C-alpha cells in the first residue's frame, strides 16, 4: 500500500533535542539493537538506588488519577509556548496535532498492552467501525477518564466520521479570543486520534472543530477523514 509514513514529516517540526531523547524514533534507537563486536556488553550501573520509571509495572497506574489543574496549567503553557512560535492559526493547530500524535502512538501501545496482555487470544480491531467504537470508549477512557459523547457519520461524504465530546477536559478552562475563533485547542486530541487510527492501520486525516451548542458551550467535534485505501479495503473485505 502506497501510504507515506506520517512520522517523518511530523518529526521535522520537532526540535533536535527532543529528537535525540525520543525513544520512539527508529533513527535514535537503532544502535540499541546492533550487537557490539567482541566487546562485552556493558550494562550501566543503576545510579544510586533511584527506581527507574521503566521498572514500574505498567498496570500500576492504570486507575491512578492525575490532577486536572496540573494538566490544565501544563496544557495552557504548551498552547502559550506554541503560539509564540507559529505564524497563524493553521500552523498552531498543526503543531498541537503533532504533539497529540506523539501522545497517541504511546496511548495505543499502552492501551493494547493493558487490554490484551492478560487474554489468551489477543486481538486488534481490523474493521473501521469497531476501531471507531474503541476510540470512542477505550481511548477516551484512557486519556480523559470518560467515554466521548457521540459518534456521527457525515451525510455528505462516505469517508468522514465524527467523534463528539460535549465538554473536553483539556479545553474546560480555555476561552479562545474572538479574533481566533476558528482555533480549536482540541487539535491535540485530534492528533491523538490520528495516531491511534494510523497505528491500527486506518490512515486518516483528523482535525478538531468547535461546534458549540447552548447547553454545551465547549462542545467539540473531532472530524476523521479516512484515506481512500481504507475505504477500498473495507469494501473488499465485506
Amino acid at each position, binding site marked *: 500500500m502506497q501510504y507515506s509514513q506520517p512520522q517523518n514529516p511530523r518529526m521535522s517540526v520537532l526540535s533536535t533535542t527532543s529528537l535525540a531523547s525520543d525513544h520512539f524514533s527508529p533513527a535514535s534507537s537503532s544502535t540499541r539493537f546492533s550487537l557490539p563486536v567482541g566487546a562485552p556488553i556493558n550494562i550501566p550501573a543503576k545510579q544510586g538506588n533511584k527506581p527507574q520509571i521503566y521498572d514500574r509495572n505498567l498496570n500500576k497506574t492504570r486507575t491512578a488519577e492525575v490532577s486536572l489543574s496540573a494538566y490544565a496549567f501544563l*496544557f495552557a503553557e504548551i*498552547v*502559550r509556548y506554541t503560539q509564540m512560535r507559529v505564524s497563524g492559526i493553521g500552523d498552531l493547530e498543526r503543531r498541537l496535532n503533532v504533539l497529540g500524535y506523539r501522545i497517541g502512538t504511546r496511548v495505543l501501545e499502552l492501551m493494547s498492552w493493558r487490554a490484551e496482555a492478560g487474554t489468551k487470544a489477543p486481538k486488534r480491531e481490523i474493521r473501521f467501525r469497531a476501531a471507531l467504537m474503541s476510540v470512542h470508549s477505550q481511548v477516551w477512557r484512557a486519556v480523559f477518564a470518560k467515554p466521548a459523547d457521540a459518534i456521527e457519520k457525515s451525510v455528505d461524504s462516505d469517508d468522514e466520521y465524527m467523534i463528539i465530546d460535549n465538554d473536553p477536559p483539556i479545553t474546560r478552562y*480555555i*476561552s*479562545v*479570543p474572538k479574533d*481566533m475563533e476558528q482555533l480549536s*485547542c482540541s487539535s491535540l486530541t485530534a492528533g491523538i486520534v490520528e495516531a491511534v487510527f494510523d497505528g491500527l492501520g486506518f490512515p486518516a486525516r483528523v482535525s478538531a472543530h468547535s461546534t458549540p451548542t447552548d447547553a454545551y458551550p465547549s462542545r467539540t467535534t473531532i472530524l476523521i477523514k479516512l484515506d481512500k485505501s481504507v475505504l477500498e479495503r473495507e469494501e473488499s473485505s465485506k
Partner: protein
Amino acid sequence: MVVFGLWVINKAGGLVYQRSFADGLSQLTANENLVLAGTLHGIHAITSRLGPTGSSSGAQVIEAETFKITILHTLTSTKFVLFTSLHDVNAEPLLQKVYEVYADAGMKNPFHAPEMPIRSEKFDTRIQALLGSTQA
C-alpha cells in the same frame, strides 16, 4: 445581601476586571473606575504599613454608611475587591470563590496574559453565575 460590584486589581494597581451587578446604580466611567482602583491600591499599601506590630495584611474591610468594601489580597498581590451591602456576612467566602474562578478561567487560559485585563468568556459566565444569583 446585595453584591454591587467586583474589581480585580493587579499587583501594579491597575484595574484588570470591573463589573457591577445591582441595577439602578449610578455608573462610573471606565476612567473613574481606573482612578478609584488605583487609589484603593494606594490606600491598601499605606494600611499594610500602619500596623503597630510591624507589617500587616493591610485593609480587609472598609465600611461606609451605605455599603461595605471587602478586599482579598492574595499571595501574588492581586487584589479582589467586592462591594456589598452593609450587613453582609458572605463577602469573604464569596471572594475566595472569585479567586478560584480567577485561577481556573484566568490563569489556566493560555490566551490570558498575567497582569493584563481579563477578557475571557468563561470568566464572565462563571462570575455571573457566582455573583449574579446573589441578588435577593
